[in-house]
Each structure stands twice: as structure tokens, then as C-alpha cells.
């Protein structure tokens, strides 16, 4: 029973960090905020090339056949560095394609040639007999319209791909790392993952939790660093317990989220019976850690953290966006108490 990363996994983390720094740094969110996509095709393919998108896919689908324990490490790094890019819908979309035995699509996604967006329901969106009707948000809608849609945790266990073809209305997103549009579905087919749904939903739950745990960690590290470097009243601000204890609490929350994500991922790879419960727990703990650490990090940075130039607000906005997936807190908690 080991929950610390192996040497190979430390290597994976380092490689992920290198390629994210090169091709999807937080800084690029600012630079490309007025571009139609947050990550250029060139950079997206470079990110795909090192295998970030196909890590958990079998080799037959252009992947490397790694477990979810490796995938969560990648998503944790994405959150930690607030890297932009449609990692989540692409990875989930590839797994849906695989479950539908569309290896070609899975390989195209894994190679970074085909992007996938994410549909998030508004109140009133209904999934009936495999067809979507009603209003929804579309995040990072790709040209061809392919998007992932997932039901709320505990709410039917369906995940699939839907093609957004009708007209959408672009609006400003809270999180500048994504592009947002409103869409209205009218009896649109959802290509579901079928029997694979439950497993893919668990995977998605863990990937979201991992990215949020990464956000919590990134904020904790940024605050500790700032507390050491920033001087006021002639001393680093970290000497003040108001700052020191805020940093300690952030570290605790980050550790709780990371530990539970690792535990749940290992439990998932091992096929344990309580994997779903552990994945839900990971998401709940990670959402809380990410939200609170992002807010605390901004406060620790003071006015500096309130500027657009600083990265602190990216963490706040990332946490806000991710918390809404999988039915949001209401559905996530209900799933946990009823399981």
C-alpha cells in the first residue's frame, strides 16, 4: 500500500510540468484572451504528442495504457499550474469514443487533431431516451461541434458525446481560460457510452477532483512562496500568524484533497467495490479545498492578487468553473450520503 508517487510517476509529473510550461502556461491565458481558442493548434498538438491526452487509452487507440493513477497526476499538474486547454473533455471524450468502439475518433482526439468541448446543462435541460432537449452552456465548442455531456453524479450515470450543430450565442466566460456559448438543444442525440458509462463517469469524477486538488496545491504553494518573499513592517509577511496559519490551513486542505484523490484513483485501478464512494469523496473534498484555497491565496497576495496581471484570480475562476461539473455540489453530496 503506497500512496506516494513512484519514481516513474515523479518523472511523469516532471515531464507534464515541462510541457505545460512550454505550451500552456497560465501567462498564455492573458495573452490569448481575445483569440478564438485558448490554446493554439500548434501547442495543442505538442501537448498531445507527449501523451497527455492518451495516457489512459490502450495502445490500439493511440494511447499508452496507463492507469487512472497516472492520469490524475497529469490533471493535478494542470490544476496546479492553471494550464488552459480542453484537457478534460478531450480525455473523457476519447474514453467515450473507445467505449463506442470508435477507435479512430479516440486516436484523433489523443493525437490532438480533434478537439472536444463540454456541454453543461442549464436548469431545464432534459435527457430523455438518449436525446437532449433544452438550454445549455457549451464550453470550448470546437468547429465540428463535438462535445462531452455528463449527467449529475448519482443521477443516471450517463456520459456521452453530442454534436452541437444549432446556432449558439457566444458570451463572456467567468474563466478566461475557456470560451463560452449558450445553446438550445432540440431532441439532439447523445451518443452514450452505454455500459461503459459508469466507469467513465468515475474517471471523469476523479479527473475533475484531481484538477481541483491541483488548484488547491498550486494556491497553497503560491501563498507559501509569497509569504516568504513579500516583506512588510521590515519582515517577510509569513512571520505573522494571520498569514502563517492561513498558509497552514491551505496546506492541510491541499493535502487532504491530494491524498483522497490518490486513494480513490488507486482504489479505482484496483477495482475495489467502494471506488465510486471514494471518487465522490475526492470530488467533494477537492471542490472545497480548491475554492477555499483560491480565495485564501488571493487574500494572502493582497492588492497584487486582485490584479489581472497576477495568476491568483485564474485559480479562483478555475475552481468556479470546475465545481459546476457533475451536477455541482448538490448532486455530488447527495450521491455521497445515499451510497
Amino acid at each position, binding site marked *: 500500500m503506497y500512496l506516494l508517487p513512484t519514481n516513474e510517476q515523479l518523472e511523469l509529473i516532471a515531464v507534464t510540468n515541462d510541457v505545460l510550461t512550454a505550451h500552456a502556461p497560465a501567462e498564455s491565458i492573458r495573452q490569448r484572451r481575445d483569440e478564438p481558442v485558448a490554446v493554439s493548434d500548434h501547442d495543442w498538438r505538442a501537448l498531445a504528442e507527449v501523451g497527455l491526452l492518451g495516457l489512459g487509452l490502450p495502445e490500439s487507440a493511440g494511447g499508452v495504457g496507463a492507469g487512472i493513477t497516472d492520469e490524475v497526476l497529469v490533471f493535478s499538474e494542470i490544476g496546479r499550474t492553471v494550464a488552459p486547454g480542453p484537457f478534460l473533455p478531450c480525455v473523457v471524450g476519447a474514453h467515450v469514443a473507445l467505449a463506442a468502439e470508435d477507435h479512430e475518433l479516440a486516436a484523433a482526439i489523443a493525437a490532438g487533431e480533434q478537439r472536444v468541448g463540454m456541454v*453543461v*446543462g*442549464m*436548469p431545464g435541460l432534459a435527457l430523455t431516451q438518449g436525446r437532449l432537449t433544452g438550454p445549455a*452552456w457549451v*464550453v470550448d465548442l470546437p468547429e465540428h461541434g463535438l462535445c462531452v455531456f455528463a449527467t449529475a453524479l448519482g443521477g443516471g450515470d450517463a456520459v456521452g458525446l453530442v454534436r452541437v450543430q444549432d446556432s449558439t450565442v457566444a*458570451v*463572456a*466566460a*467567468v*474563466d478566461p481560460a475557456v470560451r*463560452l456559448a449558450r445553446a438550445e438543444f432540440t431532441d439532439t442525440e447523445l451518443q452514450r457510452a452505454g455500459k461503459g458509462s459508469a466507469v467513465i463517469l468515475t474517471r471523469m469524477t476523479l479527473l475533475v477532483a484531481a484538477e481541483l486538488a491541483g488548484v488547491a496545491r498550486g494556491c497553497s504553494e503560491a501563498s507559501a512562496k509569497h509569504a516568504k518573499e*513579500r516583506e*512588510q*513592517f*521590515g519582515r517577510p509577511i509569513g512571520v*505573522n500568524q*494571520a*498569514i502563517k496559519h492561513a498558509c497552514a490551513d491551505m496546506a492541510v486542505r491541499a493535502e487532504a484533497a491530494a491524498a483522497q484523490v490518490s486513494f480513490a484513483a488507486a482504489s479505482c485501478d484496483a477495482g475495489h467495490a467502494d471506488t465510486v464512494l471514494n471518487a465522490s469523496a475526492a470530488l467533494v473534498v477537492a471542490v472545497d479545498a480548491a475554492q477555499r484555497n483560491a*480565495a485564501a491565496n*488571493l*487574500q494572502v497576495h*493582497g*492588492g497584487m*492578487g*486582485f*490584479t*489581472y*496581471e497576477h495568476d*491568483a*484570480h485564474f485559480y*479562483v475562476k478555475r475552481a*468556479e*468553473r470546475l465545481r*459546476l461539473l457533475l451536477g*455541482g*455540489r*448538490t448532486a455530488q453530496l447527495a450521491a455521497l450520503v445515499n451510497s
Partner: protein
Amino acid sequence: MDLDFTPEQDQFREEVRIWLAEHKPTEQRPHSGTEMRDYDLAWQRTQHEAGWAGINWPVEYGGRGLSLQEQLIWFEEYGRAGLPSMDSCFVGLHHAGPTLMSRATEAQKSTHLASILRGEEIWCQGFSEPGAGSDLASLRTKALIEGDELVVNGQKIWTSHAHLADYQELLVRTNSDGPSKHHGITWVICDMRSPGIEVRPIETIDGAHHFCEVFYDDVRIPLANVVGEVDQGWQVAMSTLSFERGTAFTAGQVRLATTVDELIELARKFGLLGDDELQRRLATARAEVAALRAMTYVGVSRNERSATPGPEGSIVKLYFSELEKSVARLAMDLLGTHSLELTSQTRSDGWTGRFLEAFSMTIGGGTSEIQRNIIGDRVLGLPR
């Protein structure tokens, strides 16, 4: 402990209410640039002409000479009428104005006070510096005395509306060899059109550009613009900061109460009032804005008994700031996935923009941590 206003005060409130209903601007307030400046100043002029500017300012400075209670009533009705805060006039009316009244020479007062009330001058505040932050007194913007002028070099930050302002209440270091860093600071009136001033807006988390950096390159300011004594500006600055803890935030507090009512309506519309948790959070927020009002009333009662506002103002500031943030958080939770969209706070349903902006509440005007220090040290008398 009589809560009742006098019949005269009730009458005053009624007049305010009627006048605001009849005269409030109908067009949307522009949210930036000279359009906003023009709007705010025009609205201030209108208020002044009808006798509503400087309600508790002495008559000799162009005010009405009434008590803090009438001023409170005005702000309550102003907030209740859903009127926009006039950000750009805030420093003039609530910081610089009261400071000049208490500390300035007659010449300085006559130059500025009536103009501020008449909507002819916009003021900004030049206190914060990049290296200083909460440690305000460690400021390093330097001023050398040359003849009858100060020559200023350095940089300020977090100056709201510096690009729109006519004057600035500026803190500079005139002496670095004093017994403490609090000595050697001078409070001076800086004309923002002086040569050598460069203003660069700062973009903030919510995409707004209200805050600025201000750079000073050999900026010459007449010594006659010094308020109080040279090197003794810290005391002047401290009184400035405490003035803003009077009734200045009353309108904002009333707006917050309105916001909570709006959120209850929003929850009703979304069918969320049946959610026990959200319903209780809304109810708690309603109780807390009530308590905030009560604390403000207590503060006004207290201030009427003493000349300068005491450190208790930090209690209200801390409670208000934290409450603004928790109400903003509650709004996001009510919105569900609608919180994905960035809706500017200039829109009436601009909840996500307001959520982002609310992060400044526990930072600006002294962080919550600094407020807790003040409460601990100066209200409770804890050891330092």
C-alpha cells in the same frame, strides 16, 4: 436608547425620499472613463443645487450644517432608491473633504471644500505604494523641499480613478532620518495636471480599470499645499482613514440589504427557496445585514459623543467586508451553472462580476487582517 428619529428627522427623510424619486438620473451610469466622471459630477451638482450635498458639513464650507443623523438618513434613502455609488466623488466627499475641514488652512479650505460639494473637483488618494501595502508608513515616495516647492519622485499604486481626478491627497516622505518611519511623512494636495505625473490604469480580476498606478518624476508642488505640518502627515492621514468609517458606507450597506432581498427573489424565481440550506443562508444574510445597520447606528451614536471616530469603526468595516464577500459567494451558489457567464457588475443581474469585485472588500481600505490587528490592539487593548 431611543431609536426614534425626531419628527423633524422623519420629515427630512420624507423630503429626501420625494426629491430622490423625482430627480434621480434615469440614464444608466457609465462604468468608466470621462463619461463616468461627467455623469458623477453632474449628479453631484444636481444634489448640491437642491441642497443635499454635505448635509453634515458646516454651512461655512457650503454644507447644510445638519447632524450625522440627517446625513445617515440621506445615505439610507439614497441606497434604498437603488442609486449608483458615485465612486469617483468618494475620496473628495469622505476622505479629503473631512480631512481638509479638520486640518487645513483657511485658504486650502476655501479653495476646495465648496468645489467638492458643487461637483467641480474629483479627488483621488495617493497613499499606497507597491513596496508598502499594509505597512503604509514604510512609504518611500520622496519629496525634497526646494524653495517654496516640494519636488516629488516615486510611485503610488491602488489609486482609484487617478486618471479622472483633479486633485490627490498625497503622502510623501520628506524626512528619512526621523525617530520612526511614522515621522517624516507629509500630507500634501497634489494637482493631478502637474507636469511629471504619469497615470497607468491597472486591470483587475473583474476586467475593470478603476485602479491606477501613478508615477511621479520631478513633480513640483507648492509648499502651500501641505496640509498640517511638514513631516507630521501621518497623524493627518490617520484621521483621514478614520473618517471613512463614519456614515460613508451607509449607502453601500443599504445596497447590500437590497442585494440580499434580490437574492431571495432570485431564489424564489429559480425555485430554490425550498432548498433548506440555501434558504437558511439567505435568512442568515438577512439577519446579518440587519445587524450591520444596527452596528452603523451604534457607531453614529458613538461618533456623536466624540470628536474623531474611534477604532470601533474597524469592527463595522470588518463585518461589512466579510459579509459582502459571503453574500457574493451565496449569489454564486444560487446561480448554479449561470455562474459560468461573466456578467458585469454594471448590469443589475451582474452577479458574477460582483462576486469577483467582492474580493477587494477584504483587501482595500485596510485588509481584514489589519482590521483585526486594530480591533485587538486599540479596541481590546491587547499587547502588541
